[in-house]
């Protein structure tokens, strides 16, 4: 294996991490508030609002029902509008975020739903406002579930970022497709797969450890 291939693989790792974490972070910036809104407007939320909940619910379901590969292609014009081009790592973040946001919204919503209603009632009895309940009770008490959700989402987006290689997305997936699929270089493909497995393992293990560390419920 020559130096060029190693350099390419290293760049691939950086690109993959850039796409994964870039999309997770922007995804949470959009999906986090979405999840909170879904929880708050839900039937058992702090301010139930059927119309708002149904709208958000509908949009989430529509986006989540489109397979990522199709979404990737459907969004090409939109991506070009925002990033200026439809290929490369930065361009891939756009469909990744749009795919991830509703997913993250659901993960956040279900994490918040797990919070004991009694604790929320106790906070209300102390005179807490809804805003305080969200930021000082719900997000704190749901911390473990939220961190677990964050880990799962990151793993999912790592996989999706590799998938975007088929349309010239960049990163390890792109290398696997270009070399392994189009040029029959099985060895390079196997290396990229191993690298993806290693990255996934690291993300999952770190995530599990961190969420366990911040969980004070059972010790």
């Amino acid at each position, binding site marked *: 294996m020559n130096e060029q291939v190693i350099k390419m693989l290293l760049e691939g790792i950086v690109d993959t991490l850039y796409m994964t974490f870039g999309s997770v972070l922007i995804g949470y910036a959009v999906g986090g508030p979405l999840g909170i809104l879904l929880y708050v407007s839900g039937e058992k939320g702090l301010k139930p609002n059927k119309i708002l909940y149904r709208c958000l619910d509908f949009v989430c379901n529509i986006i989540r029902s489109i397979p990522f590969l199709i979404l990737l292609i459907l969004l090409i014009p939109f991506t070009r509008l925002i990033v200026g081009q439809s290929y490369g790592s930065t361009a891939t973040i756009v469909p990744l975020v749009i795919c991830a946001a509703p997913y993250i919204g659901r993960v956040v919503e279900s994490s918040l739903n797990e919070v004991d209603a009694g604790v929320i*009632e106790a906070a209300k009895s102390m005179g807490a406002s809804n805003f305080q309940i969200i930021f000082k009770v719900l997000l704190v008490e749901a911390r473990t579930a939220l961190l677990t959700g964050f880990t799962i989402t990151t793993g999912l987006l790592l996989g999706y970022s590799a998938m975007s290689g088929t349309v010239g997305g960049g990163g390890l997936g792109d290398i696997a497709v270009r070399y392994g699929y189009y040029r029959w270089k099985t060895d390079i493909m196997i290396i990229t797969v191993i690298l993806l497995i290693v990255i996934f393992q690291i993300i999952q293990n770190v995530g599990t450890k961190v969420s366990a560390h911040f969980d004070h419920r059972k010790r």
Partner: protein
Amino acid sequence: MSTIEIKNLTKKFEVEGHVVTALDHINLSIEKGDVFGIIGMSGAGKSTLVRSINFLERPSEGDVLIDGVNLADLTEKELRKTRSGIGMIFQNFNLLEQKNVIDNVCFPLEINGVKKKDARKRAKELLVLVGLQDKEKAYPSQLSGGQKQRVAIARALATDPRILLCDEATSALDPQTTSSILALIKQINEEMGITVVIITHQMSVVTDICQKVAIIDSGRLVEQGPVDKIFRNPESDAAKELISGKEIRYTPVRDLQSVRKIRIVFQENSAYEPVIANTILELGTPVNILKADTRNVGGRAVGEMILGLPEGEEIQEAVIGRLKASGLAVTEEETQSVSLSPDARRPVSPASAGTTEVEHE
């Protein structure tokens, strides 16, 4: 002016298209410094009632006045302010599991915008009060049930409330822990002058620390008054059930072949005279002692007995008359066998005479 005044309070819920009346025109006045018990079976509506006092549940009709202020007239912000002056503790403690003890106690202060340093100071004082100064850094999962409730009490007191609401606060605790928590609540009431409202299904909790009691049955207020009076002479079926029902069913009292049973309650003054023995000697008739017990009612020892009377209305009345003459409170007990006496008690319905157990919620 009463600290808490409940006027014509009605609460209706809609459950699957049906309207359920959880509370039906309740009127209650709770005075400053009272330890007020609200007792009823599961589903009687007492939890809804306590949640109406701080408007966690908005009433369908009627008013709740705290220190003369009608909660319905308040804006959301004013209501939150009022709530912070009413502490509340719960059956399941409802502590923040991800915060340690001191942060839990600081929490209501944090919500009310108290500076962190001042909040810590106040929290430490309160932890000393509840006897948990060495558990500051512990998380709720490391505490026992009694300790969790102590933390909850410290948390409820953090904002210097005028009122403390206790919603089945001892129902998840064992008897020993229950009495230590009740002693703490009593201490708080006496030392800080906080008005305490206690919701429970356990008569022993009411007799232990409450001065006044209201009995709720199927959403209606059926009886209220001083605890010792109601314990001595319960009028409503629900009160009788709560006072003696459960214990009697555990003992085979009901199965004994007595024609008529009475319950007598005597206090210190009547305990000097051997009333039962004298009655038997004077009237020359045996009475059967089916159950005897001593209880602490509002800090005083109160004896309670269930007697089986001999057959014959005349002699029964003579015994009752003799007991009443000695200053004892006498009430009729439920009898399973059909009574021969014409002034027989109300017919025993299966629902009230059956094995209805008071459930833990």
